[in-house]
């Protein structure tokens, strides 16, 4: 079993126990495996995931460990297939990965956040797979293999999310098409990008990607995933404009929003952002308390408006 698989298996165990707190022994095992697996380029993410798990923030741990796991898995795929040099050899591997593409929806009822994470991973599989083939043939063989490995990792990730034995966190809120919100944010972000300097323009790349994924998921009526990606885009955009002074009182504003979430519905997507806000407030997640203010003032009010709560 690879280190990351061990980590994910341990995460599964922790998730099975409760959606809130994790078993200290499991947490310790996960921390050890994260340390082992993430020496090198993923060390920062590993520390963050480790801390989230230690705080009992399983949603945040899943969110943080995901990109690290996908990158490690894709790199491992490249190493395992370094002898694949010909188009025919690549196509054979491509067909093998294609056979593993995930189903449209998880079979079991889960927290809405897991549905969203599953949808987002699943939606990325096929375009990444399809892009890998011309990439291998026309641009760069190694990168083509990397993207094929990424497609495989995303398929495995979707399966992992689908199999997590976690129960829904309440009744599912009414979800709907987010096309108006996605279109509005696209226009706002594009206008912000126009006046941004070179350094800050790089911050728009993940915003654009989240919006693109939100749009794809929305077109598929996968509204949980679309909501998550829309809110991630909104969060990243809010980080660009939230002033330092907004950090004052962010903890209190978050507490107020938190009370409105206690209505019996599944607010696991909002819970992820609450956990991110807690990490911001602790200073362990850049840009510190200002990030918590962005969540309190921009992300959670948008969430409540969309799901029909009190902003």
């Amino acid at each position, binding site marked *: 079993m690879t280190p990351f698989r061990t980590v994910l298996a341990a995460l599964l165990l922790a998730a099975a126990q409760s959606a809130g707190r994790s078993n200290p022994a499991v947490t310790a095992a996960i921390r050890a495996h994260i340390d082992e697996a993430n020496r090198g380029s993923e060390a920062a993410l590993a520390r963050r995931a480790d801390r989230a798990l230690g705080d009992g923030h399983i949603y945040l741990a899943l969110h943080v460990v995901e*990109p*690290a796991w996908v990158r490690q898995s894709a790199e491992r795929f490249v190493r395992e297939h370094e002898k694949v040099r010909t188009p025919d050899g690549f196509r054979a591997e491509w067909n093998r990965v294609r056979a593993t593409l995930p189903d449209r929806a998880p079979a079991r009822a889960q927290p809405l956040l897991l549905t969203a994470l599953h949808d987002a991973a699943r939606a990325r599989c096929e375009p990444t797979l*399809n*892009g890998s083939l011309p990439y291998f043939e*026309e*641009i760069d063989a190694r990168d083509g293999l990397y993207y094929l490995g990424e497609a495989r990792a995303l398929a495995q990730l979707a399966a992992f999310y689908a199999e997590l034995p976690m129960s829904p966190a309440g009744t599912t809120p009414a979800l709907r098409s987010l096309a108006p919100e996605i279109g509005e944010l696209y226009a706002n972000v594009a206008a912000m990008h*126009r006046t*941004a300097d070179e350094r800050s323009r790089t911050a728009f*790349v993940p915003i654009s990607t989240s919006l693109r994924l939100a749009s794809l998921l929305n077109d598929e009526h996968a509204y949980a995933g679309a909501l998550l990606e829309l809110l991630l885009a909104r969060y990243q955009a809010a980080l660009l404009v939230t002033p330092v002074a907004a950090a004052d009182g962010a903890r209190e504003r978050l507490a107020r929003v938190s009370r409105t979430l206690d209505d019996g519905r599944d607010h696991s997507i909002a819970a992820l952002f609450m956990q991110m806000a807690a990490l911001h407030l602790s200073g362990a997640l850049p840009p510190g308390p200002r990030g918590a203010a962005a969540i309190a003032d921009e992300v959670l009010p948008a969430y409540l408006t969309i799901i029909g709560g009190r902003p």
Partner: protein
Amino acid sequence: MITALAALPLLLALMAPASAPPPAEVTITLVRWPFMCTLSDPTELLIRDVAATLGDRVNVAVDNYGQSELARRAHVERFPVVFVGDDLFAAPEDFGFGANGTRGRYVPWTDPRNQRRFRDDLEALVRKRLETAGEILDRRVRSGGSTMADSPVSGVRTDRASVSSPRRTERAGS
């Protein structure tokens, strides 16, 4: 009776109020790496900014790399690629990913001045297309014609692209 029924469509057409001409539309198509990409994402934002500036008459379409019929017809094998209508507006080499990697109208692509130049070039071309389409529509309305040609406008590219490998990018959340 039969004669009256046969004339009914003509009578109805004469009674109907003159309908407004359909809006002229220009579609900007971006062929991009499907997800996070330091080449594709700024390009998409700039295209969307142009579309937002020019209003409902401009559509934005996004094709995934490897799945674009427009790119296949234009023999462009890399990304990003931008089409206005069916015409190639910007090829990968324009963004600095040609064989030599150092030349191209918008190189270096990370420089906001080059991104602004791309945006301005695109907006100018699309404005011209809209004006042309509007003039054709006006003529059509005046003459009662039934077709609208999407006539080519100068400024589009027709040459084949040959570009170097773009940089791989990272997933959000890191």
